[in-house]
């Protein structure tokens, strides 16, 4: 039972503006993620922003378009992989002697590739949070459509 209105999404104005801004939002999310150890932000904020950008597509264009870009199976896999990646990083700490050791070279301060495992952890959290929140929103929305009598 696909509701007509949902597949059409919102008005042309909204769609056009979304098309223009969505790239910027995605870019901003990635920036926030990668510079988490130098400037404000980090994996969590980046992940939420990415999830919000997909939610944005979904609200503007309807759920089919959004689900073509990232469907539920994949987001589920991304989510679990992110979580597993994070715990693997924790296990890798045993190379440095203890659980959760930041065993990599710390590198030059203020550089993008510095701070050892922090960047990797950020990416793991980003995957988990972004995919997870999108999945959650999709579940809530799909449930609503079907739940109405």
């Amino acid at each position: 039972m696909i509701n007509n209105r949902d597949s059409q999404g919102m008005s042309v104005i909204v769609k056009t503006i979304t098309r223009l801004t969505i790239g910027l939002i995605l870019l901003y999310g990635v920036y926030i993620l990668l510079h988490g150890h130098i400037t404000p932000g980090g994996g969590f904020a980046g992940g939420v922003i990415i999830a919000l950008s997909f939610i944005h597509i979904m609200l503007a264009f309807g759920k089919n378009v959004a689900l073509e870009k990232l469907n539920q199976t994949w987001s589920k896999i991304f989510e679990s992989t992110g979580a597993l990646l994070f715990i693997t990083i924790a296990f890798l700490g045993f190379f440095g002697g203890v659980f959760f050791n930041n065993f990599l070279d710390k590198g030059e301060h203020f550089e993008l590739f510095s701070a050892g495992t922090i960047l990797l952890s950020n990416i793991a959290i980003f995957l988990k949070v972004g995919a997870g929140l999108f999945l959650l929103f999709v579940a809530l929305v799909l449930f609503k459509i079907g739940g109405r009598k």
Partner: protein
Amino acid sequence: MEHIIPLFVAISLATAFLISLLGSKFKFFRTAFPVISSAALVILSVLSIFLVNNNGLMVYKMGGWIPPIGICMVLDGLSSFMLLTVNLVAFFIMIYSINYVKKYTDVYKYFGLLFLMLAGMNGVIITGDLFNLFVYLEVAAVSSYALVAFGTGRQELEASFKYMVMGTLASGLILLSIALMYSYTSTLNMADIGKSLANEGSSSVIIFISVMFIVGFGLKAALVPFHWWLPDAHPSAPAPISAMLSGVLIKALGVYAIIRIFYNVIGSNIYTSRILLVLGTLSMIVGVIFAIGQYDFKRLLAYHSISQIGYVILGIGLATPLGILGGLFHLFNHSIFKSLLFLNSGAVEYSTGTRDLKKMGGLNKKMPVTGNTSMIASMSIAGIPPFNGFWSKLLIIIACVEANEYIYGLFAVIGSVLTMASFMKVQKYAFLGKLKEKWKNIEEVPFGMKFSMICLALICVFGGLLLLPEISNLLLKEASNAVLIGKEYVNQVLGSV
């Protein structure tokens, strides 16, 4: 060897993530894998007991940072005792679940959530950091909210919502007191907090924080003025989850945290002991009085959980060596027999589809394993001599008399008698007597469920052996010593860095 300490959390988390990644595809991850993983956790807990016995208290520095800077894990007698209790019960529940959850859809989510709950409990037990305790408490709590609603029926959802609101309120109070504590001591490590407080004495801030902690953790442990979510939440969950919630969750999140914070960190004083004694007695009596009138099997058991937690708190509140030993021993025994009883109720529900005691009758003839194991568990909980419940209740009552708290001892005896009456009713209605017409064709439950029930019943029968000097020195004495040393904990943790 000290590297096994973080594994308690890491293995259970990794298991949960793997199940949620692969569980929908491969059957292995829904059946054998949880059992194997939880067996590994049981083996690790047994190892940890020997480790503590050899080395005394052990501190594991996460990421290599020394305690006040980073998070540390502390393994002492009390933690290893709690770890054994939690993981042992969880192991039997995993075996039982494989058959029981066949009626639900998306079983892998069930096992994933169950392992997340286990990870949360292990994290709470083993951590040495106050905020970290809160985080893992939330992991366990959030997964338990979802598991209560797992059946997605009307009652499940309502109970889960109620439970969730109360649980979140409790977490909020706990977090607020952690914030106050941080502002007052400027550290989050439990040992370091204890050290800062040693110089302060008891000020109004500490009293306020203590009250908030008692309310917060009291809500989690379902002590009496804060108990009213439990009789809804525990019966509504699937039976193995009820066993997990009543058997270990309220103890790991409530009782353990209360013991750790009030004995080892803030330091016990006459007021907190008095409050715990009163709350314990109140829970003991009120819980059992409510239980007597119930005809819903699981609801009755849930009220008994409140009552039995009262015994544990009463023993702990006495603050004498014997009282604490009795309280902890009762905690272990209650985990075993209460999970067994919930598993029995699940087995009955599995075969007959009802929880109403009035509709049952004579089930012993058709379900001999369930009937007999529930008989053992009932006698255990009622405190009939050879079984484990008798010994722990006896210890608590003797401890009351020794401490000249005759009134509390009297209440404990009264509670025990009422418990016996209540379980005689259960046996009479459900398992003894004449078999009703409509249950002519029911069958005993599958092997996995039987196996768990028999094993737990065996532990009930031989549980008293834990009091033998050799075993008791290894397990119970270590645990009660860890409580009794009080603020010496602080020096031991900071000393071993």
